């Protein structure tokens, strides 16, 4: 497949972000890390939203990915970042492939609530499992990338680096998928499932596939967050976390793979500054932001870019 402008831009942004890493102030790197991790999760949410589905339970895979990464470190004693991300992808793929068999049968509020229910089941299991730290969770520490040891003073940049690479790689692969014939079915399914079936494609298997892809992306996002923060706990699968992903998804729009990444950056920036300057009312700032986006930009922030392109 021929590379499009988006793929080339993804490559350029990856290089720019990696180059900027050593000179970024600590606060900016932290903000970028969180935004990229959230952005990876919301890339998957975007795929589901394009298919006409909203999941209120993707905290399940975000948390599962983080715990899979933590297990590789704490239980298997293999503190390797690449291995952690791979474990997160494998665990989330396996679980979502099974749960997806059921969820692909549901639509609208039923899909949303059922996905929320599964995420709360994981929450219930984790808080009752003392071997995994119960409500406190546990710390993790990644000390190598693909077998190459990382010095203590380079660990922060290494975490940032793998986050940039994995997020941009995810965006690049998702962009290629969305341009493929199978990827184009997402919007067709959202518009008219009946016609898709009467053109010879399976709606259920496509939704199942998209659910698994979105879960793997959420798992990768969770593992990257665990690597950067160094701590995981059951709050990662609690419902407000899933709500945040939906929030960013709506804020971003679904027009491009850049939308979730930009939306996550805007969300995290607003939250950080609101928390800094208005610690008692920061939620209200986010609420007003969401209200403004829904009223003035129902297609999300990315619709601003689309308007400029259309002009």
């Amino acid at each position, binding site marked *: 497949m021929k590379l499009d402008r988006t793929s080339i831009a993804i490559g350029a942004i990856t290089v720019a972000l990696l180059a900027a890493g050593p000179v970024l102030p600590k606060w900016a790197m932290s903000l970028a890390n969180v935004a990229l991790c959230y952005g990876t999760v919301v890339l998957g949410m975007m795929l589901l939203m394009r298919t006409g589905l909203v999941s209120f339970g993707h905290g399940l895979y975000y948390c599962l990915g983080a715990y899979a990464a933590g297990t590789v470190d704490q239980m298997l004693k293999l503190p390797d970042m690449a291995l952690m991300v791979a474990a997160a992808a494998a665990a989330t793929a396996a679980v979502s492939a099974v749960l997806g068999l059921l969820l692909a049968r549901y639509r609208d509020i039923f899909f949303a609530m059922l996905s929320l229910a599964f995420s709360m089941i994981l929450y219930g299991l984790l808080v009752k499992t003392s071997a995994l730290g119960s409500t406190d969770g546990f710390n993790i520490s990644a000390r190598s990338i693909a077998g190459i040891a990382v010095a203590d003073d380079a660990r922060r940049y290494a975490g940032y680096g793998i986050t940039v690479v994995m997020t941009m790689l995810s965006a690049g692969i998702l962009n290629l998928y969305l341009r*493929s*014939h*199978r990827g*184009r*079915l997402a*919007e*067709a399914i*959202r*518009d*008219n499932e*009946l*016609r*898709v*079936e*009467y*053109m*010879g*494609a*399976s709606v259920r298997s496509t939704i199942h596939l998209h659910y698994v892809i979105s879960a793997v992306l959420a798992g990768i996002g969770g593992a990257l967050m665990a690597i950067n923060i160094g701590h995981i706990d059951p709050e990662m699968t609690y419902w407000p976390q899933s709500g945040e992903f939906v929030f960013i998804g709506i804020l971003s729009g679904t027009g491009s793979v850049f939308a979730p990444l930009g939306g996550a950056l805007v969300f995290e920036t607003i939250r950080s500054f609101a928390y800094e300057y208005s610690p008692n009312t920061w939620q209200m700032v986010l609420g007003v932001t969401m209200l403004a986006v829904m009223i003035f930009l129902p297609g999300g922030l990315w619709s601003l870019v689309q308007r400029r392109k259309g002009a």
Partner: protein
Amino acid sequence: MSAILEAKGLNKSFGAVTAANDINVAVEQHSIVGLIGSNGAGKTTFINMVTGYLEPTSGSILFEGRDITSLEPRQITQLGICRSFQIPQLFNTMTVAENLMVGVGIIVSAGGGWASSSLQSAAPAKAVDAMLEQFGLGSYRDRQAGLLPEGTRKLLDIAMAMVVRPRILLLDEPTSGVSADEKFVLMDCVMAAVREGRVTVLFVEHDMDVVVRYTQRVLAFYEGRIIADGDPAQVLDDVEVRRFVIGEHAPMQAGAASIHA
């Protein structure tokens, strides 16, 4: 000519209502068959059963001798039985070209099966352009499907059924909601495409001028049964068809006439 589609003892009930009552019919390859009947006569139920939307209560449907009675719509489409709908089923937020591209993409993704080799080897965009030209939709190429006039929506709906290269095409009231002057233009366009593709066609129609002009055979439905089957002139001349389908009243009996006198 051999039968490409056969219905044997087909019945469909919705509770106490019988929508299809012992339908037995064989459709020959490359034929163009009209399905006529008043509302609720069972025409659409028949099409819905053939295309897998409804499962018959009893009986069987054979496509080239293969039993397809309990297959899903997707599987039936993949065998080469495609349909259009009374209310056009489009991807409303997409453009006309994108609507057709979905179908081309499905064939390309399948990488074989029911699609013709000519379409698989052609570049998808070229295949879409060819289809737009064939159906006279070129000027609507970049228009959003949800904003098209009804006649064009109907045409696009049929083009979307044709884009996956069917062996049999079932059209449910292709000219309903289309203005009188557009009806024949639409049907000429569709018939040219099906003749070129050597497609067998069954279509539900209320307009008898359209039926007479385009069909070689007519099936007349009444209360879930086929009450007449033959060439158009013969079927439209049938007493039962004139009474129950066309709506001509039977001559009043002498007794009844004297009461009104």
